[in-house]
């Protein structure tokens, strides 16, 4: 049974097509890796899946709810860890969790207990009263993961969750996520630039480039299809090493210009 369903998804920013006729599905309980070079359309797709951007055309559903028409239900069903931090630095770890609990309608009786449970899970309970601005990058990420899980989502989106983290923290994080996936059956949808992470943890992989899916399937399928021996090689073969250059500088420039106006 698929929990995420994407059909013919397209997003245009003016003349620039960021996502072009993309279709894929993710099964319930799967760990799904969404890979692609910078500017391939990963974050744009995640933003559309998480109701932050309206698609130009196409169909999206999460847990049988239409993302555009039933945004409220969809928002209840997923948790997200964004590419860049989305915590309130001026508040404490506990307060950040509390706001999230209220926003997601977590009942007052279970709130404290659940916050404690999750903060202990990411080993931040003894820092609950510290302001987030005193946290290191890894601690912030852990807090964000805990926060994303607070309302018991069915799907957890992680947009480059390990960016800028040291190998220790990265390993820890994937361990947490695998544990969660196994014990709670949470579907995990993540993007990363570290191919070995995807290789190690993902059940299914999709590679996107220039806004289109260029390959998808299990690790072995991808390796077989490209007749390579590792995901890194397969990825490079699929997305190209040399021919991309010229093409990319153009779209990249456009993306940069677009981002300068919209992002942040």
């Amino acid at each position: 049974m698929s929990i995420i369903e994407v059909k013919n998804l397209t997003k245009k920013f003016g003349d620039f097509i960021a996502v072009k006729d993309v279709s894929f599905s993710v099964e319930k309980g799967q760990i799904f890796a969404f890979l692609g070079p910078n500017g391939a359309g990963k974050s744009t797709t995640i933003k559309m899946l998480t109701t932050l951007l309206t698609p130009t055309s196409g169909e999206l559903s999460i847990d049988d709810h239409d993302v555009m028409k039933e945004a409220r239900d969809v928002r209840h069903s997923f948790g997200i860890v964004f590419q860049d931090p989305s915590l309130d630095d001026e508040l404490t770890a506990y307060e950040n969790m509390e706001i999230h609990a209220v926003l997601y309608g977590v009942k007052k009786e279970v709130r404290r207990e659940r916050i404690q449970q999750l903060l202990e899970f990411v080993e931040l309970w003894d820092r609950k009263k510290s302001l987030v601005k005193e946290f290191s990058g890894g601690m912030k990420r852990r807090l964000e993961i805990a926060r994303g899980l607070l309302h018991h989502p069915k799907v957890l989106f992680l947009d480059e969750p390990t960016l800028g983290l040291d190998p220790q923290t990265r390993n820890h994080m994937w361990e947490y996520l695998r544990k969660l996936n196994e014990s709670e059956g949470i579907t995990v949808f993540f993007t990363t630039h570290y191919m070995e992470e995807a290789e190690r943890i993902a059940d299914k992989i999709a590679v996107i480039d220039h806004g289109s899916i260029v390959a998808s399937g299990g690790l072995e399928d991808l390796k077989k299809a490209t007749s390579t021996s590792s995901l890194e090689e397969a990825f490079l073969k699929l997305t190209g090493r040399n021919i991309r250059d010229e093409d990319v500088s153009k779209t990249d420039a456009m993306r940069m210009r677009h981002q300068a106006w919209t992002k942040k």
Partner: protein
Amino acid sequence: MQIIYILWLRQLKRYLRSRSRLIGSLAQPLFFLVALGFGFGPVFSKAGEGNYIQFLVPGIMSMTIIFTSIFSGMEIIWDRQFGFLKETLVAPVPRLNIMVGRTLGGATIATMQGTLVLLLSLIAGFRPVSWGLVPIVILVMFLSSLLFTALGTAIASKLDDMQGFQMIMNFLVMPLFFLSGAIFPLDRTSVLGTIASFDPLSYTVDALRHILTNIHFFTLAWDISILVILMALFLAIGSYFFSKVQI
């Protein structure tokens, strides 16, 4: 309700924890009060207009309110920059609740600031005509604070970066302040008097001055009606723009 409350509380906590912001936002009105109040005081009374400090304090209170409110409203830009905005926007709650919570928070802070300025101005020799009317003073301050916080939210929803913030401060907030009659008496026959009647802050200044010192340009009923109408209008515009924000 809970959502509005927690976001209101968040604004307050952020404000109370940032000591530099607290002090900074009180220093400016005090400089204005001291420099203008004592600097122009003798000229003002020689011109037969009476005590300038009495005249000026409601203006400085209004200045505090407009600066603090618009700044609070525009904090959305900071939240966008530092990411917290996304957290609220993907949450399964109506955007209107988010906007209302933030706006009430910002307005509460601005009203507190205005009250602090009023208290501090007592040291400079300010004496309100009646203390019994202070609740109405607070009400007018809160009304104006809501109005300008909503205006700040509306603008910030349309802006993407911090650069825009300086521009708004220089080209919107400063003119609104200087043209409002906050620091000089308006004159019905002059161009400035006409311009001032198009400036929302004029009505805040006039209402506060009326209640606190009995000096006025418009009538109190008119002041408050205009403020209520504008508040409703800006809240509607602010919520609309905020509901359209995409990341």
